[in-house]
């Protein structure tokens, strides 16, 4: 599966968030991510897509989300891209509260790498997340008796 990619394009609307989760779950379980890592992946993808629904497009204006899942040997790369208003960079670190600001800090907590960039061509935002599968291999290597 190494080097393979799955691309999903769907309307930036709340009712499609579950579809994004289904896709990342489908891919993640094929990569033998464990239950807790799968939960992390669902959370990261949902937060990134939810931000696009809430911030990228004017309310009621139709917009789309591109979700790309790139399968590599030791990691899954998740790229969420929109053609919306764009994000103000660098992202201001706010204390998460009921008023908001929790989304990006949740993503940071559950993935190994997070990069946010403006789209290369045209308006919009690209959120690039990386989740490694390596943990289990590391543990196995350590369990090897050092005779």
């Amino acid at each position, binding site marked *: 599966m190494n080097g393979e990619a799955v691309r999903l394009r769907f309307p930036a609307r*709340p*009712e499609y*968030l*579950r579809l994004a*989760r*289904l896709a990342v779950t489908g891919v993640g379980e094929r990569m033998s991510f464990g*239950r*807790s890592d799968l*939960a992390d992946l*669902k*959370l990261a993808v*949902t*937060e990134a897509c*939810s931000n696009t*629904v*809430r911030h990228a497009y004017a309310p009621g204006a139709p917009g789309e989300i591109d979700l790309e899942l790139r399968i590599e040997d030791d990691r899954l790369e998740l790229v969420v891209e929109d053609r919306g208003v764009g994000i103000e960079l660098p992202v201001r670190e706010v204390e*998460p509260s*009921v008023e*908001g600001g*929790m*989304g990006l*800090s*949740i993503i940071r*907590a*559950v993935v190994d790498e997070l990069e946010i960039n403006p789209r290369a061509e045209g308006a919009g935002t690209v959120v690039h997340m990386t989740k490694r599968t390596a943990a289990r291999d590391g543990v196995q290597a350590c369990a090897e008796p050092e005779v």
Partner: protein
Amino acid sequence: MRDLESSAIDVTDFRVEEDQPRAGVVVVSVHGDLDLYSADELGDRLVDAVERGAASLVVDLSGVAFVDSQGLGALLRGTRRLGAGEGRLRLVVPAPEIRRVFEITSLDQVFPMDDTREQALAHGTPENGLI
């Protein structure tokens, strides 16, 4: 359909149920995924329960397979509407994956959590403001 229940179909329907085990205490059971699609519905229901006289809320998330920041926001709306006072909104959160979302955001400091509804309801009386 027995074994087939483990298909993707079943988690779709978001559903909130209410129960009043004793005066002043309302148990709100949530079923389905708690995200941008469903969070407002839960937030509205919590606010509504307080406005109809609930002094304490137990939100049972045993039937919830997914919670994100929007779901957390809905629970915070409920707490805020209840006003000051610790432990007046308790959560039932048996699943470690769901618990983790509260830990990541330090909201495990805001919401007392139990594994079962029975434990949550055993925590006090309406008189002392706790559940």
